[in-house]
Every structure is written in structure tokens, then in C-alpha cells.
């Protein structure tokens, strides 16, 4: 018997694929910029092209991020991102224990997916942090680097640009690590491909 729930509306699927592609472009060109011209770095792209691609991808990403925020503010999809205070840590630890030990002992999934719960606690907190903490800082610092005249010149004697750059790189790096962990945890569904299929056809499927 199989149980299908429609959990991924079309707009979130379109947003997600655009977002994923842009993110990969940004990571690739971002690395090219940061490690530009080093002898031991593989220069797969010319510096000026990397600058151009990074800027264009970033501007589209910003637009798509705005759509994500507005979409979740006005549609029902937003409720999956609401974090409740009670049992926050216990639920998080329960989910963590499941990934670390439980799943190898064939235990039952502690937070099965249903209409009310698309994400397990670990997914939820990582999505919320990535989308509502990481992304805004990444975008704001990115625009700071694009238009340096809007930045504070000096901050406790250190250049405002430098602080912005360090923040931008650090958040970019953290989100890249998020991406890897994210893609990997997406293989932890019923079968390794289940969640990817969901993200394409919109239906969460459960087989008993």
C-alpha cells in the first residue's frame, strides 16, 4: 500500500531548482575569485568572467530569495518552517540519535512525514538557519562588496570592507557545507532517491 501526500507545490519546486543551480554557480565562481591566480589553484575560469558570472548569479539569487520569503509568508508552505519552543532540544536530539544510531538498528522514524510535518526537526532547524539567517547575511554582505561606497569605512580600526568580506566568505562557506549535508541527508529517505523524486513531482510517497 502506498500513501501519497502533495507536499511540494509547483512554485517551491521551481524556486528550488533555480536556487540550487545558482548556488552551484556562485560556489564555483566564488572559489575562483577567492583563490584567483594562485599557482596551485586550478583556474578553470578567467577572473573577469568569474566576476561577471558571480554578480549576475547573485542578483538573480536575490530575486529568487525574495520570492521564497514572500511565497512562504503568504502560502501554507510557510507553516512548515515555524519552530516551536517546547521540546525543541529533545526532538532535535531524538532525530540526531536516529540518524546516528537508530536507523542502523532499523528503528522507526521518530517524526514521520504528514500533512502537518514536512520536515523532521533537524531538517527544519537547518532550513530555517540557512534561509532566514545565512541567506540574508550572505546577500547583504554581497551587496556591500558590490557597492563598497555604502559600507562603514572603519570599524574599530579594521576596514569595513574587510569585515564584510570575511563575513561573506564565512557564511558562503557555511552554506556550502550546508548544501553538502543537505544533499546527503536527502538521500536518507525511504530509498536514497525518494526525496529527490518528491522534489520533482511534488508528492511525498510512503510505502509500507
Amino acid at each position, binding site marked *: 500500500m502506498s500513501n501519497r501526500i502533495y507536499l511540494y507545490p509547483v512554485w517551491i519546486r521551481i524556486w528550488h531548482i533555480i536556487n540550487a543551480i545558482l548556488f552551484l554557480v556562485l560556489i564555483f565562481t566564488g572559489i575562483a*575569485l*577567492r*583563490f*584567483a*591566480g*594562485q599557482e596551485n589553484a586550478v*583556474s578553470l575560469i*578567467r*577572473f*573577469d568572467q568569474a*566576476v*561577471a558570472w558571480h554578480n549576475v548569479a547573485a542578483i538573480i539569487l536575490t530575486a529568487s530569495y525574495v520570492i521564497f520569503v514572500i511565497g512562504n509568508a503568504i502560502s501554507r508552505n510557510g507553516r512548515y518552517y515555524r519552530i516551536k519552543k517546547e521540546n525543541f532540544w529533545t526532538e532535535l536530539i531524538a532525530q540526531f540519535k536516529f*540518524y546516528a544510531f537508530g*536507523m*542502523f538498528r532499523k528503528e522507526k522514524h521518530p517524526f514521520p512525514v504528514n500533512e502537518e510535518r514536512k520536515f523532521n526537526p533537524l531538517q527544519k*532547524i537547518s532550513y530555517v*538557519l540557512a534561509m532566514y539567517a545565512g541567506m540574508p547575511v550572505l546577500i547583504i554582505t554581497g551587496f556591500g*562588496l558590490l557597492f*563598497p561606497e555604502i559600507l562603514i569605512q*572603519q570599524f574599530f*580600526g*579594521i*576596514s569595513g*570592507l*574587510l*569585515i*564584510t*568580506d*570575511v*563575513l561573506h*566568505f*564565512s557564511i558562503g*562557506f*557555511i552554506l556550502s*557545507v550546508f548544501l*553538502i*549535508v543537505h544533499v*546527503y541527508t536527502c538521500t536518507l529517505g525511504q530509498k536514497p532517491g525518494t526525496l529527490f523524486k518528491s522534489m520533482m513531482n511534488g508528492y511525498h510517497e510512503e510505502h509500507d
Partner: protein
Amino acid sequence: MKIALTSLIVALISVISLTDKHAPVLQEPQDEYQVEKGRENNIFAEDNENCLVCHGEEYYQLSDTAQDKSERRIMPSNYYVDRDEYYQSNHWSFGCLDCHPYDFEKFPHPTSARLEEPFHCNDCHGFDEQYAHYHFDEITEEYNESVHDDIEGFSCWKCHDPHSYEITIRTSENLEETILYDNNICLECHANYDKFQLLSSRDEIRIVSSHDWLPNQAAHFKSVRCIECHTEISDSLLVAHKLRPADKAVKRCTECHTSNSRLLATLYKFQSKKIRNDAGFVNGVILNQSYVIGANRNPAINMLSFIIFGGVVLVIIFHIFMRLIKK
């Protein structure tokens, strides 16, 4: 969350503990002896007024004592000498007649005086121990090989205005002002076709369009000098003077946008040296006054990110392994 915070804090702290092996080595700067400049300290100030009644004003009085006639005339701006700039310049302590022939006391100035060859910098500065750290001889050698040297009528004075030149990069506290000062030297001719034409019959070179390959041109011209790209790097000179033809100028972005940026050997040369002496770490200027994509690499942050990245990948590999054997 905690991990993110911790790594951010570590990242910020490590900014302060930078090291870089590529810093250029420059001779010890001499302790600059401090002189009190200014009009009041110039013993020729009164005599200079004999010239500045005309050259220090926008108008001068053209008079004929024989006929007792006098009329106001405009002083052409090229012949104007600003008192404030003059008395703050390197050569603030001079009388006009230390450099100009006494014949200029006559008016109209005799043609012979007007066509007299001016002093060369080395007439006074060459072989003088006090100025040895400026390396006038080497600068002159480099200048002799530069594109401007072939131009009839060009000399050191064309860039070093005799009445306002002031050492800037050597004493710079504010890099942005220094860059502006140095670039204005070039733009004096390269953005002013009237002046350019005094020396060349070539068509106008429009700087903005001949550099349109450079993105964020305005930002670049505010944060690098023309000579960064147009001169050959010199090991011993603070300001390289060998200007190469346009087709040999730096066009590759990664000459600057990389960890051992050429800016360390040009624009930031003096500062990186000074800061290493004072505080024990290099790159301080790049870090504190400017920001160059690709050049601001911080080994500590990079190392930290490689470690975190490697750790995550290991955990994932281990997890996959567990999934496979526990299937």
C-alpha cells in the same frame, strides 16, 4: 548554530593574526627630520612677493612708467603660482630666483631668460647623502627608459610641479588621498588635451574609453594608481619610474587579485614594510585601508575551512559506510 558562531568568531580573530611570506623588502627609511614649513619660515618670502604680486594673483597690473599708464590684465592660469601650495611644497624654503634667472626681475621677461634650461633635480640632489634614500640616480636611469623621455620638452618637472610637488606616498597616512594626488599628476596631461598638445601632436587619448575593459573603473582609479599598471616593478625604488608603452601595461586581473599581488610591491610597498616593523605583521595596510578580491586571503580562515570541510566529508563517508554494512 554554535558551530557557526564559533567559526565566525575564530574567523574574525584570525584576521588579526595574519602572516604572509610575500612581503617585499625595502631599505630602512631614514628618520625624516621634521622641518617647520610655511611662508613665515621662508627667509625669501618678502623678495618672492616681487614675483607673486603678479604670479600669485589672478590679475596683474600692466604698467608703463614712462607714459604713466596702467591696466589690469589676466594672469594666465598656467603661470599662476599658489602661495599656500608653494610654501607647503618640498621646495618651500626657496626664493624664486634660486631656480629662475635674475633676468626675470625685468618685465616683460627677456626671451633669453625664458628659454634658459632649468636645473635638473640631480644638480642639487645627486650625490647628496641626505637624499640618498630617494635614489635619484636610479630614478633618473628608469626615467631615461620611460615612454615620456622620448618626448621633446619633457622632464622630471612635468610630473613634479616645481611650485607644488610634495612627497606624498612616503609619508602617507591616507592612502586614498595619496592615490588621488598621484593620479592627478598623470591626469594633468592625460585628461587635459590643451596641455597634452604642448608636447604631442597625437590625437586625444580618452582615458575612460581606453580603459573600458576594466570593470568598476571608477572604483579602481580610486584605489590604485596609474603607475601600478604602467610601470615596471622596481626592487629598490619606492616609486617605480620606468613607464612602459601602453601595450606592455598590466591587463591581467590576477596580477593584483591574488595573494602575492603586485600591489604589495607597488602601492602597498612602504606601508607593508612599516607595519611589519611596527607591529610584527604584514598585509596590515591591505587589510586596514583597502580590500582587494583575491588578495585578502587569510591562511588561518582557509585552513579552518579546509578542516571543517574535510571533517564533514569524513562523517558523510563514514555514514554511507555504516548504511552499506547495516543494510
